[in-house]
């Protein structure tokens, strides 16, 4: 579909567009997580640049269209990072765009370290956005603790561009650990992931390959500390055959997880299921998928199934939600009736003309 792309360079430009617009718009960052389905796109490409970065305060402020790669490179120079490890989705979704920081937060994109440090939404400190009424709004700020008024920051995180055009985000960053190691535990059950997290050894990543029955447990920190914790975990899992992936090898493994490389062989539909960690292996048992991986101690399940197989219908008795990433199903999981009513009313307050990303969360 050929779409018209608007690239406003300021909040007031966006406001002008929105005040006069009556046709549906797709709010786009880099389009690496969501493809535009409307004829008209409002892009954040011209809202680009880091506004403020204080390494000593662990905070950064950036315009929404700033490429994720630029953010990561800038942080790396100070030995810092986005600790929640936003995953790279574009190859998997067969998209070509480049991820932007606004898109990361708008989709609440969180990777393996989520179990230790929280999700994208937990790192977002402040937002500026222009809503469907053309109002230039702000909420939160650039300090770590802020309970001044309602937390619209959380509302905007994961709202998928349905409430307004996010123009600026401020967020918490964290130091990159001195080193890391990964325990590769062979021939084990998935419940080893929850066993690992329930130790005092501060696990920063857990991953399980259903096909091979191999678990990966990551620890990060200062050298002596990592060595100590690896030793302890080896003792804990002495019944298993364990290999250790040291620094570079470990980094490479988790980079692959972050890029969702392991899902590449998938030829059919692809689903992302979020459940209680101990229910992860239950989901796998119920579905017996062609491809299955667990992250987040089992709470995040990646499943590749035959085209047209309705994962959502199969697992409806398990609490949580299923997102269809590739396939001919509704992308988002339906909410409960009351939740839907509240969400619709909220959306109506911010976008009464229903301009934004109409097909999303509807």
């Amino acid at each position, binding site marked *: 579909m050929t779409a018209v792309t608007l690239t406003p360079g300021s909040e007031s430009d966006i406001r002008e567009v929105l005040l006069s617009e009556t046709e549906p718009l797709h709010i786009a960052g880099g389009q690496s997580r969501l493809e535009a389905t409307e004829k008209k796109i409002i892009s954040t490409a011209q809202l680009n640049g880091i506004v403020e970065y*204080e390494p*000593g*305060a662990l905070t950064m402020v950036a315009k929404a269209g700033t490429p994720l790669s630029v953010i990561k490179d800038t942080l790396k120079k*100070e*030995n810092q990072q986005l600790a929640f490890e936003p995953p790279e989705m574009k190859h998997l979704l067969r998209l070509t765009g480049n991820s932007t920081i606004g898109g990361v937060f708008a989709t*609440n994109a969180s990777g393996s370290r989520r*179990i230790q440090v*929280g999700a994208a*939404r*937990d790192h977002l400190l402040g937002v500026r956005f222009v809503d469907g009424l053309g*109002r*230039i*709004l*702000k*909420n939160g*700020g*650039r*300090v*770590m*603790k*802020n*309970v*001044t*008024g*309602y*937390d*619209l*920051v*959380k*509302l905007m995180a994961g*709202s998928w561009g349905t409430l307004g055009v996010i123009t600026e985000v401020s967020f918490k960053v*964290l*130091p990159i650990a001195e080193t890391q190691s990964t325990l590769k535990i062979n021939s084990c059950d998935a419940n080893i992931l*929850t066993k690992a997290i*329930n130790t*005092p050894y501060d696990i920063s990543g857990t991953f399980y390959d259903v096909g091979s029955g191999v678990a990966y447990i990551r620890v990060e*920190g*200062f050298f002596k*500390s990592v060595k*100590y914790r690896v030793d302890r975990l080896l003792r804990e899992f002495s019944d298993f055959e364990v290999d250790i992936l040291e620094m570079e090898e470990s980094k490479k493994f988790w980079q692959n997880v972050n890029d969702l490389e392991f899902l590449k062989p998938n030829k059919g539909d692809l689903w992302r299921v*979020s*459940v*209680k*960690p*101990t229910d992860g292996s239950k989901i796998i048992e119920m579905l017996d998928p062609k491809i299955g991986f667990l992250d987040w101690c089992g*709470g995040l399940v990646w499943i590749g199934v035959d085209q047209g197989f309705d994962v959502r219908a199969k697992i409806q008795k398990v*609490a*949580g*939600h299923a997102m269809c990433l590739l396939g001919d199903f509704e992308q*988002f999981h339906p*909410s*409960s009736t009351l*939740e*839907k009513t*509240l*969400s619709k009313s*909220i959306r109506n*307050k*911010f976008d009464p003309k229903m301009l934004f990303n109409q097909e999303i*969360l509807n």
Partner: protein
Amino acid sequence: MYLTDPDPTILAKKTQLVDKLLSFLPRDAVIDDPRETLAYECDALSAYRCPPMVAVLPRTTEEVAKIVKICWDLDVPVVPRGSGTSLAGGALPTGDSLVLGVARMNETLEVDYPNRLMRVQTGRTNLSVTGEVESDGFFYAPDPSSQLACAISGNIAMNSGGAHCLKYGVTSNNLLAVKMVTMQGEIIDLGGSHLDSSGYDLLGLVCGSEGQLGIVTEATLRILHKPEGALPVLIGYNDSQVAGQCVSDIIKAGVLPVAIEFMDRPCIRATDAFSQAGYPDCEALLIVEVEGSDLEIEEQLTKIVEIAKTHDPVELRRAKNNDEANRIWLGRKSAFGAMGQINDYMCLDGTIPVSKLPFVLKRISEMSKEFGLDVGNVFHAGDGNMHPLILYNANKPGDLETCEAFGAEILKLCVEVGGCLTGEHGVGIEKRDLMHIQYSVDDLEAQMAIKDVFDPKWLLNPTKVFPLDASAERRANASKETAA
């Protein structure tokens, strides 16, 4: 501060309300005798008092739903109350309101270690949550200073923090799900035992909404395995700017302490006299705590001490065991009590970017002279969460007003340097009229629109958070409906 007058049309419904409540609640759960409602006249912002029309103490979510529905039908405002420890007047009633206290709802409903969560009724105190799982090696991380008394319901309402949130985050980062009763008396579950939500993050929106969107009766909380141990180091400097630099250097070096506490000279002197903690008499004192095994603590403290030494400290005391750790924490933990012994005080919690610390401290001490009131500073330095304690004499006419004016100036300053009015206590009534400083008319409208969605009649804790003039029209519409 102006407290809204009770609405006589609502007061006229008291008997009707009480009768309806008694139709399904036991007698001791409905408090309507004016001598007894006095117990609910204030929270920890005790300068302001107003007994409610009625107070109720339900035991179940279903009872809460029935109570609220009655109030919805009769247009009676509802003020939710946890333990009444709010420093911002979050639980202060109005004369025409019903106080809904969750104190009797304190059951543990589920403990699930593999999934690291527990579900409780929200009348549970913060510390008792940890108490429940401590013997199995777990804890609930958010630790407000009032944790012995404060309820989980209030923690959720105010999105409470604490000294250790530099590492573990605040309430909203440790809350997985809630069961909530809306003002229409409907029961809704938000969030779940899974780690992210599909659709809008209504849970995130409810956390920190100061009891204005619904009454949270159950909460699923993240519990964590305890670290093997923790030890602090105490560092003294003769210049607060240098202390600020030290904090920044520690953070930049990649050490992530669980807590970095800061005290200034007036506070050090007061607490030392009170607690005999043996603090050095210096300009700025830091307490930096790290966690882990002995070896890990050793490794981190060594790095911190190395950094601290480059800034030429006047005192450096590294705890080697729990006894020494307790002695280091002793003064800090009794800081509020120590200041309270000197005089009445008002405690603020504006938050600033860490880099602005020296400037803000300097301005506060200048303002202290201008207003003629002493102030001590003790705060969470790692995240810029200030706690200026302004001393005043409640019995001296005009002193409270001067103190409030001084406090307002400090909070304005916090916003000016890029911070916010409140980092962990909430807005309540205390800071509602200062909201204009931080937010534009549109910003406040956007927030009030959320309340319109959850509570269209503006009956839930209506006089809090928003400036009275900003919320006036919405509140008036509610009472118009009452009259009609």
